């Protein structure tokens, strides 16, 4: 053979690698770099004024401490709930599994601020439910949710489905014989959980934990609702406060604070890397997925507990939302006479932006989900199996746009894309495309982490066999690897779609006439005091998402384990 044998393969791999590097650099590095630039050189002139003033202020460090505290607390709670539910759903013989999973994942689609509002109302003096059972607190009594504990509670509940999704996809690959070996050795189910299942599930679990930590760190809606009234600041709300102030150096201070958030997020990811390095989690057997543990007499109790959890986490807030969407104005008690569809009328028929918002949000979220997964699979390949050093560095950077408050990412996007693109002359500003950029940058990590966890569980000889059969990299990725990491990839795509669908903080600055998103429209209703319209629109969003999720049940029979609530 000629001396150039193998050049085609090498060229293909190098091209793919550099394309991925470019994509990650543009999506993750560029906004950050632009922000950093604004932080130390506002208006083009170098100055450390913003740096010193921010870092020397006590408020900054208080907010940072609070951020870490709520992020850790929220993550612990989310992992407890999410992992327990994943194990119960994946490894035991409870009934109604699919329905339960469906309901458990649903809260991911409700915007955090809507959740916060619903819970506040639930525990407040005007709560219809509490009034019914006579436990309504006296008017004006302090709502217990306005505290660090309240924030942690809501963060944990909000992100438990995230941990659940990643862990469940991982559990699907756990083969029967590993557990049977444990049972044969005489171990009780709990021991097997502790010594076999959990260690093997470390990759997806760690992926879920890392995602959860960064999500809690960058969450704005919940601390905004629950923390602001008590002036319990976290970094995202501090940034918002700075923006609301009127100083000229606002942007550079915001940039410095954002870098602080990014730094904390990177620390968290670094820890994840450490935990996964040099340990072998590969599962090489190809036997059938698990026959569940049997719960016997515990089963009814467990099922009831799970459904109570669903009711608390999902049904109650939804009911609160529904009730407030049916009254003509805030505070009017809901009776047969006062109930009205006028809010829905307005939102559906009178308000042109709401309809556009549905279409926009749906297409943006779906596009972002698909695009991100298509990037994540080859990206994870190089990260996990090729150990490309350049990509490992970039991997840390992908966390940033997700950890930063959405408003900061939006500002970075504006700074980058206000002027027309060089060479191409296209203007992204004030179009849906800049919002798409924001979503791609922000949610890349949501799609990437689960896929990375999936690769850690994959046996590389499956790819090597394909190599020997003559398949080049792209073909291996599409015919062998993609089908094998599909469960984790779909989990990632779902996460991206659901989170983007209700996204608010990034779109709030980037939207323009014709490019409204659902979160933006709900937000403006709320701000303007039209919380009944906001509730109606939020209910419609939930209804549409439920319909979409249900429609997946009608489509043929995809491979097992692709969708968490199917089989």
């Amino acid at each position, binding site marked *: 053979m000629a001396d150039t044998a193998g050049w085609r393969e090498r060229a293909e791999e190098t091209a793919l690698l550099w394309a991925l590097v470019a994509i990650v650099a543009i999506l993750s590095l560029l906004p950050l770099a632009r922000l950093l630039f604004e932080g130390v050189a*506002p*208006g083009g002139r170098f100055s450390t004024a913003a740096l010193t003033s921010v870092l020397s202020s006590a408020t900054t460090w208080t907010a940072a401490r609070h951020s870490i505290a709520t992020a850790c607390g929220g993550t612990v709670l989310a992992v407890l709930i999410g992992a327990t539910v994943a194990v119960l759903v994946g490894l035991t013989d409870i009934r109604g599994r699919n329905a339960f999973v469906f309901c458990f994942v649903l809260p991911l689609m409700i915007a955090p601020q809507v959740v916060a*509002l619903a819970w506040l*109302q639930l525990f*407040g*003096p*005007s709560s219809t439910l509490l009034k019914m059972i006579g436990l309504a607190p006296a*008017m*004006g*009594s302090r*709502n217990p949710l*306005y505290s660090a504990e309240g924030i942690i509670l809501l963060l944990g509940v909000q992100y438990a489905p995230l941990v659940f999704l990643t862990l469940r996809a991982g559990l699907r690959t756990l083969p029967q014989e590993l557990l049977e070996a444990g049972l044969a050795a005489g171990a009780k189910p709990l021991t097997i959980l502790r010594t076999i299942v959990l260690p093997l599930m470390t990759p997806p679990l760690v992926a879920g934990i890392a995602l959860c930590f960064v999500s809690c760190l960058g969450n704005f809606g919940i601390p*905004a*609702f629950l923390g*602001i*009234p*008590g*002036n319990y600041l976290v970094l995202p709300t501090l940034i*918002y*406060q700075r*923006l*609301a*102030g*009127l100083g*000229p150096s*606002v*942007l550079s201070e915001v940039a410095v604070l954002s870098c602080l958030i990014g730094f904390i997020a990177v620390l968290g990811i670094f820890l994840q890397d450490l935990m996964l390095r040099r340990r072998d989690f590969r599962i090489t057997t190809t036997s059938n997925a698990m026959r569940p543990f049997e719960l016997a007499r515990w089963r009814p109790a467990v099922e009831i507990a799970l459904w109570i959890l669903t009711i608390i986490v999902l049904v109650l807030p939804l009911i609160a939302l529904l009730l407030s969407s049916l*009254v*003509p*104005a*805030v*505070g*009017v008690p809901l009776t047969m006479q*006062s109930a009205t569809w006028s809010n829905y009328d307005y939102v559906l028929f009178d308000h042109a*932006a709401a309809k556009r918002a549905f279409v926009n949000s749906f297409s943006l979220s779906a596009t972002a989900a698909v695009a991100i997964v298509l990037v994540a699979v080859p990206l994870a390949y190089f990260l996990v199996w090729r150990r490309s050093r350049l990509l490992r560095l970039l991997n840390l950077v992908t966390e940033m746009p997700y950890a930063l408050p959405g*408003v900061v990412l*939006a*500002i970075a996007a*504006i*700074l980058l894309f*206000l*002027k027309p693109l060089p060479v191409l002359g296209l203007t992204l*500003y*004030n179009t849906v495309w800049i919002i798409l950029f924001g979503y791609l940058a922000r949610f890349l990590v949501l799609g990437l982490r689960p896929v990375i966890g999936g690769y850690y569980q994959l046996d590389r000889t499956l790819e090597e066999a394909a190599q020997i059969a003559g398949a080049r990299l792209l073909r291996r990725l599409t015919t062998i690897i993609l089908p094998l990491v599909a469960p984790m990839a779909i989990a990632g795509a779902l996460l991206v779609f659901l989170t983007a669908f209700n996204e608010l903080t990034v779109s*709030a*600055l980037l*939207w*323009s*006439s014709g490019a409204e998103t659902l979160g*933006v*429209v709900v*937000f*403006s*209703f*709320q*701000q*303007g*005091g*039209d*919380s009944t319209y906001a509730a109606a629109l939020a209910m419609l969003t939930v209804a549409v998402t439920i319909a979409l999720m249900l429609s997946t049940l009608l489509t043929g029979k995809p491979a097992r384990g692709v969708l968490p609530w199917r089989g």
Partner: protein
Amino acid sequence: MNYLLRGVWLAAALVSMLAPLSAQAQAPKGKLVLYTSQPERDATQTTTAFKQAYPGIEVEVFRSGTTEVMGKLAAEFAAGAPKADVLLIADAASMEALKKDGRLLAYPEAKVAGLAAGTYDADRTYFGSKLITTGIAVNTAAKSRPASWADLAKPENKGQIAMPSPLYSGAAAIMLGTMTARSDLGWAFFEKLKADEAVAVRGNGAVLTAVASGEKPYGVLVDFMAFNAKAKGSPIDFIFPAEGVPAVTEPVAMLKTTQNPAAARAFIDFILSDEGQKLALSMGYIPARASVGTPSWLPPGTVIKLMPTDIGNVVQNNSANLKRFSELFGN
């Protein structure tokens, strides 16, 4: 004689032909980009009415909270290519900041006749479009009805008050600056509120929800929100306290970097015109030009006692005030 008559006729004909042409040449047209923090519905109504008055102008609107609007503007300034032509935001303090930065374009020919004094900038860079006062909102089931600010801060109302946080709301920041400058209220008033465990929430919308739902029976709230909700049936009432009310004017202004100064001026004209003022009235606001009328929820003959606001002072002391407020209400 015939020649003269015919000449005059011809001249008149020519003039009458040219006049509409020149009028048309003078009518502003093109694109106008508006950034506003008005509530959604009001923004839509305003732009629709404006488009009817000036059919040649196409309006692009960006609507969000004041913080978001100012953030977007700041980013556009930093990137060197601001897109906005006109701004219509909640409070004059933000406008003052922009004016100080040299971002606003003065409009000396604006028709300010009949506008209450102090509602527009002395240098004619920004003009108040309406009067939004902040008073006391009470839930109809509340135990008492405070008649003054001092009444609100009474110890009996402990744990039952909600107010918009000046840290997140420019309008509330103006309220803070105005009231702390008064001898009968000052910082003592806010210290009493703090002793009453008042909650400072993010924005007036949250206060409305808190008061109307009964979570906090007493609130510091803007007038139109309370009255619009009451009109729809919310169990909420609005009280003008005895000491007076601070007000914000929701000013409109032109940016120096505007691409379409003619259209921008037309917009300001519209807002300040009787037609624009009547529109504000119909949306439930107190118009800046008193002669236009008063909104239906205002009992006829009510005299609103406005607290005077030295906007320059407010802006100057703003960061100090905010810092003190943050320390006072911090955990």
